């Protein structure tokens, strides 16, 4: 082992150093800004979590699994998982091993930033020792790993279907500069190390390559320019990084501990929201997943493009994209980073200015409150059934629910027999949270007057808001599918099973992804018939297209989405499609080629 240059320096490291200094400085400032933008209590919470030992361990583990190994991508798509993790993990290992080499062989140079990166240029013949050859081998191994990942990335760019993606993102100019410099870095490193392998040593990749090059080049004149090129590629990549999608690398490392600390989006653009936006690597997974993408015009309204427009500050497009989304939550379910597409959009909607703001404070709910007070529920508890606006449009659900409750001998009464108030969730989806609070207060008055101990909902849209935004900790809020499953399990409700009658369960967005209810309705259906699954189900179920989340999607566009969702539901050729949401039901019946019914109706006819 010997150092090749007494000065320990060569001008070719300058591009690398410039890039490094720039990117480190930029990220540091950006990080401080994001932390300062958090509301005070959030900031405190985050900083405390950073020094809590248990939290530190969770953060390190999550950063390792997500940023380096990309476990979530692996689960989705093996090819993409391999591509990303080979580049990320391989690169990380090369940097780590570079530092190890410096610490082992020339510890006095550890303060030189560029030494670990260009080690083979400055230090020679390390492969002669056991440690040296071992390290050289590992270096080549991880370089090969990265190169295989890069090869897949290149294939993906030109033929995305090969890696199992129908659509991939369109890149902006700077993204392209970043992409090409990233592609160039590792082949250049291979070349540079190969050209110097007969001096500095190498392993199974670099030594044979060196031998081949020497057969027809015969001199070392190519070595230095290649090291220059390698350094320039690195420098360019790091200089454009903050302005490209590669900003996701540093951003995600901050996002993970913040999310683990329980920080949520509080401002449409600042703090956590901006961190989510910058953490998106534009992998494009959400494009194929989004139900709106069945129509090609909507591909550019998926979450990846929301993130891009938010970065560019294109207000017109931000508004368009925010309004169109169904808020179905599927993009978040599939996103390897966990970008909250719906929440980001709701925050944008909340920012909008209105000339006219509704007010519900003046509504007199006393008649509704006194109608439920002292009824079957009485002061001693009982079930209060709130059908909700949408169920008023599908009275069959209300009838079936009432009949089932009676059959099971449940003490119950209805909260809105002659129509009631809206639960407030549609207003929240439109970003009018303040107004929604007024409705919540009104509904609370009625619920409290009834003295019930259980609030039963047959609409998942209501269910979610009653569960999350109403202060009802002493009252059980339950969706009818769960309630009936419990009655079946306890034997209070007897259901006859019809063999061979295939039923498919459609997971409504708000019930499944929204509230995590997947298994209870399936169990209840299995008691009534033969349960089959849709093509995509559970967290990946496809929105019916009728969602109140979208403010701007028109009837025709929604129809295409409904058809697509129905195609997905009927892959196993079920006799009936079953759902637990009046809006899904009303949307599906219009386009379905077979009966669509609510779970309550199915159970009612079999009991």
């Amino acid at each position, binding site marked *: 082992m010997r150092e090749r240059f007494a000065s320990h320096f060569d001008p070719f490291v300058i591009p690398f150093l410039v890039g490094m200094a720039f990117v480190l400085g930029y990220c540091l400032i950006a990080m401080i800004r994001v932390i300062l933008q958090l509301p005070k209590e959030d900031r405190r919470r985050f900083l405390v979590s950073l020094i809590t030992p248990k939290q530190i361990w969770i953060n390190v583990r999550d950063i390792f699994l997500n940023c380096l190994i990309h476990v979530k991508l692996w689960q989705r798509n093996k090819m993409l998982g391999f591509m990303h993790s080979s580049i990320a993990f391989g690169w990380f290992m090369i940097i780590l091993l570079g530092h190890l080499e410096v610490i082992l062989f020339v510890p006095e140079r550890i303060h030189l930033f560029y030494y670990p990166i260009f080690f083979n240029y400055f230090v020679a013949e390390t492969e002669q020792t056991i440690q040296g050859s071992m390290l050289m081998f590992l270096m080549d191994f991880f370089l090969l790993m990265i190169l295989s990942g890069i090869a897949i990335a290149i294939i993906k760019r030109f033929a995305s279907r090969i890696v199992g993606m129908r659509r991939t993102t369109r890149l902006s100019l700077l993204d392209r500069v970043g992409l090409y410099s990233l592609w160039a870095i590792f082949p250049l490193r291979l070349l540079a190390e190969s050209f110097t392998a007969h001096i500095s040593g190498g392993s199974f990749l670099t030594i044979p390559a060196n031998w081949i090059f020497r057969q027809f080049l015969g001199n070392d004149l190519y070595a230095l320019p290649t090291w220059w090129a390698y350094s320039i590629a690195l420098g360019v990549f790091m200089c454009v990084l903050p302005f490209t999608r590669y900003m996701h690398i540093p951003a995600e490392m901050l996002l993970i501990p913040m999310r683990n600390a329980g920080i949520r989006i509080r401002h449409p653009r600042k703090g956590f929201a901006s961190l989510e936006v910058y953490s998106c690597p534009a992998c494009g997974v959400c494009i194929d997943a989004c139900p709106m993408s069945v129509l090609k015009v909507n591909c550019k309204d998926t979450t990846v493009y929301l993130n891009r427009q938010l970065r560019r500050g294109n207000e017109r497009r931000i508004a368009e994209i925010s*309004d169109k989304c169904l808020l179905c939550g599927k993009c978040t379910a599939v996103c390897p980073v966990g970008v909250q597409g719906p929440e980001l959009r709701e925050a944008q909607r909340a920012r*909008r*200015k*209105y*000339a*006219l*703001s*509704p*007010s*519900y404070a003046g*509504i*007199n709910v006393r008649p509704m409150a006194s109608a439920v007070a002292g009824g079957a529920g009485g002061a001693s508890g009982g079930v209060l059934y709130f059908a909700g*606006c*949408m169920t*008023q*449009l599908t009275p069959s659900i209300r009838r079936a629910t009432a009949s089932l409750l009676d059959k099971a001998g449940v003490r119950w009464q209805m909260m809105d027999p*002659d*129509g*009631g*108030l*809206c639960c*407030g969730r*549609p*207003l929240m*989806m*439109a970003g*009018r949270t303040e107004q929604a609070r007024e*409705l919540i207060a009104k509904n609370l008055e009625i619920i409290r007057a009834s003295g019930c101990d259980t609030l039963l909902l047959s609409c998942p849209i209501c269910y979610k808001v009653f569960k999350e935004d109403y202060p009802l900790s002493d009252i059980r809020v339950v969706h009818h599918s769960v309630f009936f499953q419990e009655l079946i399990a306890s034997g209070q409700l007897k259901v006859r099973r019809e063999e061979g009658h295939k039923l498919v369960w459609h997971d409504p967005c708000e019930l499944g992804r929204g509230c995590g209810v997947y298994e209870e309705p399936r169990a209840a259906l299995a008691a009534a018939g033969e349960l089959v699954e849709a093509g995509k189900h559970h967290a990946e179920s496809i929105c019916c297209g*009728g969602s*109140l989340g979208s*403010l*701007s*999607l*028109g*009837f*025709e566009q929604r129809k295409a989405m409904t058809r697509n969702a129905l195609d997905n539901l009927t892959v196993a050729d079920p006799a009936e499609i079953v759902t637990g949401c009046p*809006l899904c039901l*009303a949307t599906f019946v219009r386009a379905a080629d077979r009966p669509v019914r609510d779970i309550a109706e199915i159970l009612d006819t079999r009991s």
Partner: protein
Amino acid sequence: MMDFGFKLSPSSAVNLDTVDRARYDRLVQLVPDARTCIDCGSCSATCTAAPWSGMSVRKVLLGLQRGRDDEVDAMLSKCMLCGKCTMVCPRGINTRQLILTLCRLDRKGEVVR
């Protein structure tokens, strides 16, 4: 004034010559479907807010064209965006978008910023 044998109360008279239709015109620019309303009244019949506020998308559209701005605003400010009217509209009009768009327009038909 000529005597027709009956009187018109001034407060409910609609004088189309003096009606400022700026808001309606802007609305149909932003939500062109608003023009396709056939006044069927399905939206009024299903409206969750109707029983205690008289809200009706049909009446809102008519009111705008007849200069009944105060009535229109009173109705709009009671809509809860529940979406029932959209579900039943035979013309497939996105009534929620229509309502939200109207809420963003001032009386001169300008989008507030």
